[in-house]
C-alpha cells in the first residue's frame, strides 16, 4: 500500500529525513514514534502530497504521492492532523459532507447517495445529535471526532494520522483511537499514525517504526520496540517497562 524507498528530504541546509525506507502492507496499522524533530511529520507531508522528497520515492498505492492529482489522492488517502478542523462557523453536517468532495466533479453537487453516506457515518461516530452545531462551538475532542467522520465519508483506502490525540484528554484519546480501530477492522483500512504517547502506540498499532534524527532506528512489534535500552538511546531517558495487566502489552512508566 505504502512504500517508502531511500527517502531523504532537505530543507535549506538541514536534512529532515535521511535515507528512510519501510513498507506498510494493506490492512496494517503502523505506528510512527520518535522524539520531536525525528522527521515523522515531514514523512506524513510527503505521503499526503503536500511536499516532495529531495531524493528517493514515496509511493502510495503503487504511484508516487506527488504524481497523483490532489483530488485523486484524496479519494484514496484521508489525513487527520493534530490541529484537525479549524473552529470555523460551519455546521458539523456540512463539514462531514465535505468528505465527499474528492468524489465529485467540479460542476457536480452532492446527491442522495452522498447524503446517505453522511447519515451513516454520523450515526456510527455518535455525532447525530451534533449535526446542526457549529464547529466553533465544539471542544477540541469533539472537533477531532468530526474530522474522523469527515475522513470516513471520504472512503479512503489509506488513513494517515499525524498526532491525532495530542491535544485531547484521556477520554477522547481512547475514544478517537477506538473509532479509528473499529473503522480499520470494518473496512480493511491501512493506517499509518504518528503518536507521541508510546503506551497508546503499543496498544493500538500492530507494528511500530522508531525514528530519530530523520532516520529509522528500528522497526518491529511493540515487544521489540518498547524496550528500555532502545528507548533510552532515542529519548535520552530510561523508562521503566511494565506489562499491561489485561493485554500483557509492554507499557512505559517514567
Amino acid at each position, binding site marked *: 500500500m505504502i512504500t517508502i524507498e531511500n527517502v531523504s528530504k532537505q530543507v535549506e541546509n538541514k536534512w529532515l529525513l535521511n535515507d528512510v525506507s519501510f513498507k506498510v502492507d494493506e490492512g496494517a496499522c503502523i505506528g510512527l514514534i520518535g522524539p520531536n524533530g525525528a522527521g515523522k511529520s515531514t514523512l506524513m507531508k510527503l505521503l*499526503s*502530497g*503536500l511536499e516532495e522528497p529531495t531524493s528517493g520515492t514515496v509511493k502510495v498505492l503503487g504511484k508516487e504521492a506527488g504524481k497523483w*492529482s*490532489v*483530488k485523486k*489522492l*484524496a*479519494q484514496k*488517502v*484521508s*489525513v487527520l*492532523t493534530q*490541529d*484537525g*478542523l*479549524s473552529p*470555523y*462557523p*460551519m455546521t458539523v453536517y*456540512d*463539514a462531514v459532507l*465535505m*468528505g465527499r*468532495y*474528492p468524489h465529485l466533479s*467540479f*460542476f457536480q453537487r452532492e446527491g442522495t447517495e452522498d447524503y446517505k453516506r453522511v447519515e451513516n457515518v454520523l450515526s456510527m461516530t455518535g455525532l447525530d445529535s451534533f449535526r446542526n452545531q457549529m*464547529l*466553533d462551538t465544539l471542544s477540541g475532542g469533539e472537533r477531532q471526532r468530526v*474530522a474522523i467522520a*469527515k475522513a470516513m465519508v*471520504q472512503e479512503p483506502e489509506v488513513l494517515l494520522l499525524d498526532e491525532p490525540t495530542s491535544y485531547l484528554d484521556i477520554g477522547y484519546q481512547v475514544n478517537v483511537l477506538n473509532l479509528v480501530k473499529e473503522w480499520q477492522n470494518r473496512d480493511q483500512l491501512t493506517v499509518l499514525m504518528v503518536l507521541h504517547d508510546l503506551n497508546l502506540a503499543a496498544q493500538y498499532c500492530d507494528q511500530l517504526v522508531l525514528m530519530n534524527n530523520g532516520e529509522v532506528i528500528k522497526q518491529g512489534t511493540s515487544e521489540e520496540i518498547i524496550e528500555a535500552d532502545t528507548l533510552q538511546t532515542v529519548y535520552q531517558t530510561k523508562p521503566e517497562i511494565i506489562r499491561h495487566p489485561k493485554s500483557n502489552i509492554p507499557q512505559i512508566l517514567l
Partner: protein
Amino acid sequence: MNNRLILSIAIPALLTTLLVVMSLAITVGAANINWQDVWLIVFAELPYIHQWIEPSWSDSTETIVLDIRMPRVILAAIVGAALALAGAIYQGVLRNPLADPFILGVSSGASFGAALVFAFGFQVVWLGKFTLPVVAFMFGFGTLMVVYFLARIGQKVRMETIILAGVVVQAFIGACLSLVMALANEQLQTIVFWMMGSLTLTDWSYNQIVLPIILICSIIALFYARELNMLGLGEEVAHHSGVSVEKTRFYLLILASIMTGAAVSVSGAIGFVGLVVPHIIRLIVGADYRLILPLSIFGGAIFLVGADTLARVLMAPRELPLGIITAFLGAPFFAYLLRRTKREYF
C-alpha cells in the same frame, strides 16, 4: 434551515427588492416620472408584449427612461454586484476580514491608468471612447499580476505575503498616481472625481462590454463556493480533502480581479461596497459561501443602485461622488450590525 430553502426564499425576495429599487431609481431625477410609466416603457420594448401596450407618455420621457436613466441604473447594479462578489471572494481566499476588491491593488492600478488617460488626453484610435475603461482594466489587471508574482515563493503564495505585496505595490502606484495628478493641473478635478467613483459617463455601450465579462466570471465563481468553504477549514484540510489549494486560489483571485477591473474601469474606484456587503450578508446568513456568494451579488446590486440614486438627487443638480455615499451609508450600518452580533462570524 438548509441552504436550498434559504436561497429559495432569499433570492426571489432580493430580486424583487432589486427590481423595485431599480424602478424607483429610474423615477427620480430632474424630471419626475411615475413608476407605472417606467414599467410600461420597459414592457413596450419587449417582443410580443409590446402590442398590448398603448403609449401614453411623451417621447422625451421615453428617452430619459431608456437612454439616460436605465443604462445608468443597470450599470450601477452590475458594478455593485461585481464588487460585492469580488469582495466576498477576496475575503474567503485571503481569509482576512479586511480584504476588499482593492486590497491587491487592482483599483490603484486602474486609477493610475485612468489618470494617465485623463492627464495626457490620449486615445487609442481603434478603442475610441473605450480607451479609458480598457486602459484602466489593463493597468488594474497588470498590477494584480505584479503583486501575485512578487508574493510567489517557489510554487507557493502565502496569503500574508500577498497582502503585504499588495500594500507595497499600492504605495508605489499611489506615488505614481500623485505624480500624474501633480502634473495634470487642468484635469485634476476629473481625475479626483473618477477616483471617488461615479457612474456619470454611461450609456448602453458600457453595459454591453461589462455585463458579459462580469456575468461569466460570476457564474464560474459561484461554482467555487464549496472550495471557499474548505479553505475556511484550513489550508491543509482543504488539500487533504482534494482541493488544489494553489490553483484554486489563483483562479479565484483572477476571477475576482477581472470582475473588479471591469467594474472599476467603467465606474472608478467605488469603495466600501466590496468590503461591507459581503460582511452584512455573512452577519445575516453565516459563513457558508454557498449562501454568501449568490446573496452578495444581489446585496451589492441593491446597495449600489440605492447609493447612486442618492448621489444623483441629494444635492441635485450637483452630483456627489458615489464613493462618498457608499461610505456614508455603509459604515454606520456595518457598525450597527457589528455591535449587534454577539458571536464570531468570520
